[in-house]
């Protein structure tokens, strides 16, 4: 039906009888829009009348351009004669094109920048307050559930323990082992100059027991688990499932947040322990492989020189990080607003926030433990 008429180029020429009457012809359609634009730009600035009866095909783009020209020469689309089949199109386009548009002012300047800065700062402040509030809400709910232990969702907690803890074991082991190797190599390079290669054992052990074990695990889980929590709860939020939970007289904190929180608080220390062991194994592998420290010697030296305090310092941070990751992940999920884009934004924000908060707290803790001489 469309290809039936030959593709006739649009044109506008003075008619033979009167040069001030213009005859438009051809296909005034979107595919010809560029040509049409050139046509009306080069057309004469005065015209008595425009005759559009020879236009073979007309769409809204063509009608709009015709209207632009007609308005420029002071005629208006109403005076343009067209074929009967185009009349209703011209009529509806005329009404629209002759209504002036309100100019929209866009401000890309300094004021806009200051405005965005202000909004961002305010958002951060709100985020911090929301996190503290959410933490309080969770504490309150925990207190209420502990009084009635039957309300603790065992099945759900176990499920999350599996997905948060067990499923992350291979990843945590592999990465910690490799970081353990790297630290050992790095230490060996520096200590070799003093002929003190054997101190690699202390370096790897103290580093992993105090810092790296827990930090690596927490960062991995912030990327893996906080994002998953946000996406899960966010999808439920946008599907109105959270609202359904509330109207059914249930508590979304108790139902969704507590199982995730408990699972993470239980699993993160366990994973941290595994990360510590894998890191030590990495150091042991490098020691045996290229530094001439046999595994026996390595273990004996650990027992001689490393005090258990290092282990407890590292371990004590694990539950704190777990709480931070779980709270941020869940809170961001609840803040999702409807659209798929919002789920994505919130997931990114939850990962960024939890990782930065984990590192910040770790730095503060390191200073604290140093001052306390633990």
């Amino acid at each position, binding site marked *: *039906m*469309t*290809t039936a008429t030959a593709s006739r180029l649009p044109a506008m020429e003075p008619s033979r009888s009167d040069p001030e009457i213009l005859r438009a012809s051809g296909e005034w*359609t*979107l*595919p010809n*829009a*560029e040509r049409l*634009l050139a046509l009306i730009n080069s057309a004469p600035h005065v015209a008595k009348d425009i005759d559009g009866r020879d236009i073979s095909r007309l*769409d*809204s*783009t063509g009608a*709009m351009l015709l209207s632009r020209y007609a308005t420029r020469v002071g005629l208006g689309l109403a005076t343009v004669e067209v074929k009967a*089949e185009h009349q*209703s*199109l011209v*009529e*509806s*386009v005329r*009404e*629209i*094109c002759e*209504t002036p*548009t*309100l100019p*929209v002012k866009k401000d890309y300047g300094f004021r806009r920048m200051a405005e965005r800065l202000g909004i961002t700062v305010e958002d951060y402040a709100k985020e911090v307050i929301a996190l503290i509030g959410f933490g309080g809400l969770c504490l309150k709910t925990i207190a209420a559930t502990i009084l009635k232990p039957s309300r603790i969702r065992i099945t759900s907690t176990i499920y999350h323990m599996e997905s948060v803890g067990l499923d992350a074991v291979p990843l945590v082991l592999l990465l910690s082992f490799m970081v353990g190797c790297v630290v050992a190599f790095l230490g060996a390079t520096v200590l070799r100059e003093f002929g003190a290669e054997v101190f690699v054992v202390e370096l790897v052990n103290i580093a992993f027991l105090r810092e790296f074990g827990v930090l690596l695990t927490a960062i991995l889980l912030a990327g893996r688990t906080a994002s998953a929590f946000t996406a899960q709860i966010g999808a439920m939020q946008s599907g109105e499932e959270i609202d359904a939970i509330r109207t059914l007289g249930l508590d979304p904190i108790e139902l969704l947040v507590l199982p995730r929180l408990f699972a993470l608080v239980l699993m993160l220390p366990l994973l941290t322990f595994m990360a510590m062991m894998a890191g030590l194994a990495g150091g042991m592998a490098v020691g045996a492989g290229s530094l001439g420290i046999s595994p026996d010697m390595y273990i004996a030296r650990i027992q001689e020189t490393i005090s258990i305090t290092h282990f407890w310092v590292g371990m004590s941070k694990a539950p704190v990080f777990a709480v931070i990751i779980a709270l941020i992940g869940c809170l961001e999920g609840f803040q999702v*607003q*409807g*659209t*798929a*884009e919002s789920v994505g934004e919130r997931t990114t924000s939850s990962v960024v926030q939890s990782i930065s908060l984990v590192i910040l707290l770790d730095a503060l803790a390191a200073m604290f433990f140093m001052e306390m001489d633990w």
Partner: protein
Amino acid sequence: MSASVDAGTDAAAIATAPAAASENELAIKVRGLRNVFGDQVVHDNLDIDVHPGEIIGVVGGSGTGKSVLMRAILNLRRPQAGRIEVLGVDALSEDRQKRLSVEKNTGVLYQNGALFSSLTVAENVMVPLKEHYSALPADLVTALAMLKIRLSGLPDTAAAKFPSQLSGGMRKRAGIARALALDPALLFLDEPTAGLDPIGAAAFDQLILSLQRALGLTVFLITHDLDTLYTICNRVAVLADKRVLINAPISEVEKFDHPWVQEYFHGPRGRAAQSAQEKP
């Protein structure tokens, strides 16, 4: 609806359905279509004709494959067998160029608008224009987008808003504006009045009718809304038993002897919609 042309509500005007066109002048021609999901046959040997310039309403119970039919015609799903021609072009062709010519000539309104959530309404409408006519100057593209937005009956202020800031009815209008961006000859609508209040639904029906008249569109409309069928459709195609039972003006369809058709048109809702049409 400031933008609408004089859209008379009288059913008499609709009676001017296009005369039966000959085979090769059909807007959409589907022959022997077969769609299977696993071991569930949705369509078997389904034929449907859509004539240019008509509004065809496709009805059928849940699971009869209304949306599947639309997705097959739009090449979003490859049928197991059958031929589909859209505007005289083989829609199942592997030729990218042929498919593109079909895609440029079809506009689709999805059930929830399917607007790109990261773009404003005006930017949504500009997406196909910028993609397919990249040489056009920016001010013309903006003007064209504004034209479509006004044609769809949206206020100017809606142009700069994001889809999430619009109501359901306005989102659908924005969806129509984007569907019309390339001045297509064919418009597909998937349940356009679902989720709208009766007043909004009636206004939307009139919008479809006025756009169809102004732009000379062929409209393929999936609906459950009996009022839409009675007010704006030239023809009604009933999907049941894996095929199109009947494809005819509504007065003939409601007399058709099939349990589902009788239940549908002569149940309490059908009677109400009928009597609403009979009132002067």
